[in-house]
């Protein structure tokens, strides 16, 4: 019998790499963060250093691990652990066999997934359902772009081609501005973190460009600035539209708000709740969906994506004990 072992998860982003150490009982016991190095070799080397960094805090080395999981922003073949395309990591020409290279470097098995998928798995792990019900949620990432990861009936839903949850590119305003994807008026233009920057550009309204746009916008609204209040409402309406879209498509029990904008915490949740309540008032049908009760914030103080990657690594089968090479006859 193989005893469950600790695993490490990584969430490799364009600027930083987050790591989490998951104890065999599923507890997140340590975390680390380092700057991401771009390019295939940089990504592999950074991943190894991040794993070692989180292990050092516990006085452990990779031999103690059951496996390593990795989330990357890009197109991944989870079956082989190959990153096909990840522009933000500088991996866009030759596919990177990340799982194999990490396994070679660290001597443990590795799995690789898309970053939204690991975030959804991490959210499901950190927000367990009571009464042993299956996890059922969408992790809605309000970042540079807008997309969701899906865990449905307890299983990760990648989609037949990996496109499940890419709701940022559903056009919602046919006459809207042209999106980078070529369509017009995509939801991403209204509900992403970039949309907040468009509504309330950093460095305007008397604020330093160093203050993140969501912080500046919500602070101005709290201070009673009518333009900010209107902008918050407009943004919250767009996030509410994304929530409604996810629930009407797959009827997830929870929609978890994550990504940079979600670091606003309660004020964002309150604004989105208010927007959902406004929409309920206009439609008994929408009201019947009980949308406000489905929305929650991603848990704080933990790197959700890295935790999800560590959860996926638990499924890595134990390696057979090293076989002594047969002596030459």
């Amino acid at each position: 019998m193989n005893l469950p072992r600790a695993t490490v998860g990584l969430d490799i982003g364009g600027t930083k790499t987050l790591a989490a150490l998951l104890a065999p009982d599923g507890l997140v016991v340590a975390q680390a963060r380092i700057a991401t190095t771009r390019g295939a070799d940089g990504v592999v080397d950074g991943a190894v250093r991040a794993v070692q960094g989180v292990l050092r805090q516990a006085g452990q080395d990779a031999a103690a691990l059951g496996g390593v999981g990795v989330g990357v922003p890009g197109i991944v073949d989870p079956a082989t652990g190959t990153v096909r395309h990840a522009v933000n990591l500088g991996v866009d020409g030759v596919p990177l066999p990340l799982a194999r290279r990490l396994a070679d470097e660290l001597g443990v098995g590795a799995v690789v997934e898309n970053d939204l998928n690991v975030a959804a798995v991490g959210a499901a792990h950190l927000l367990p359902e009571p009464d042993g019900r299956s996890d059922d949620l969408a992790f809605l990432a309000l970042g540079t772009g807008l997309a969701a990861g899906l865990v449905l009936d307890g299983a990760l839903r990648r989609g037949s081609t990996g496109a499940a949850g890419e709701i940022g590119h559903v056009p919602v305003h046919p006459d809207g501005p042209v999106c980078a994807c070529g369509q017009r008026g995509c939801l991403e233009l209204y509900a992403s973190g970039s949309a907040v920057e468009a509504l309330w550009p950093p460095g305007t309204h008397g604020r330093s460009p160093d203050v993140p746009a969501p912080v500046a916008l919500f602070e101005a609204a709290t201070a009673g600035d009518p333009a900010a209040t209107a902008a918050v409402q407009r943004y919250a309406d767009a996030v509410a539209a994304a929530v409604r879209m996810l629930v009407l498509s797959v009827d997830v029990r929870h929609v978890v708000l994550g990504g940079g904008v979600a670091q606003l915490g309660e004020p964002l949740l309150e604004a989105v709740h208010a927007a959902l309540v406004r929409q309920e008032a206009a439609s008994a049908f929408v009201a019947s969906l009980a949308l406000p009760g489905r929305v929650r914030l991603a848990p704080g103080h933990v790197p959700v994506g890295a935790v999800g990657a560590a959860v996926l690594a638990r499924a890595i089968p134990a390696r057979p004990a090293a076989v002594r090479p047969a002596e030459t006859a």
Partner: protein
Amino acid sequence: MEVVIATPQELAVLAADAVEALLRRKPDAVLGLATGSSPLRVYDELARRHAETGLSFAQARGFMLDEYVGLAADHPERYRNVIEKEIVSRVGWAPERVQGPDGLAEDLAQACAAYEESIAAAGGVDLQILGIGTDGHIGFNEPGSSLASRTRIKTLTRQTREDNARFFGGEVDQVPRHCLTQGLGTIMEARHLVLLATGKGKAEAVHQLVEGPVSAMWPATIMQMHPHATVLLDEAAASRLQLAGYYRQTYASKPQWQGL
């Protein structure tokens, strides 16, 4: 602040009682661990109770106060290795459940921030064991430390490096110059502080801690602002206390139901 003056062995039993009561009430408690000579008898007592009465650390978690910067992962004086030897391996604690700051991180500031997040994600420290330096430091918060500080890099004083040279073959130059330490603000968020001090060398620091003005010159004095702080002293460490008689009287007449 409660002050108890007793023999070193009695102090260890009292501290271990507090840890045991916590673990029995809350098996997944978060313990704050200190290195140094002061807590050694406590760890011995906890190891004895684990072996003889089955006191379990299986679900508990531990966070260390501090770590040297730059000591190799396998260096015997690296605090994560010291704590492994002194308590973790002796009480059947899974190593991954006990964390220390990463003194080998390429980005030390990020490592400190991540460490704070780990403590917060664990729900904070329930009981923090502390020692005190001759210059009044707790953790490695040397004189002049911000009373509101968080986990960060600090430069060790000459005094601390000389005090610790005995662990490095008596050579001060072998003692690292920098460390990562939980800040005084971090330590103050622990729900119960239990500080142990023994020996004449600690008497002045103990006097300042208990009876001096709150000041960054004697960083441990911030504990006067903590709602639940226990100071466990032997006779020598208590020898400069002005109100020692009152502390003894208070402890002697303490209600039975009131633990530390």
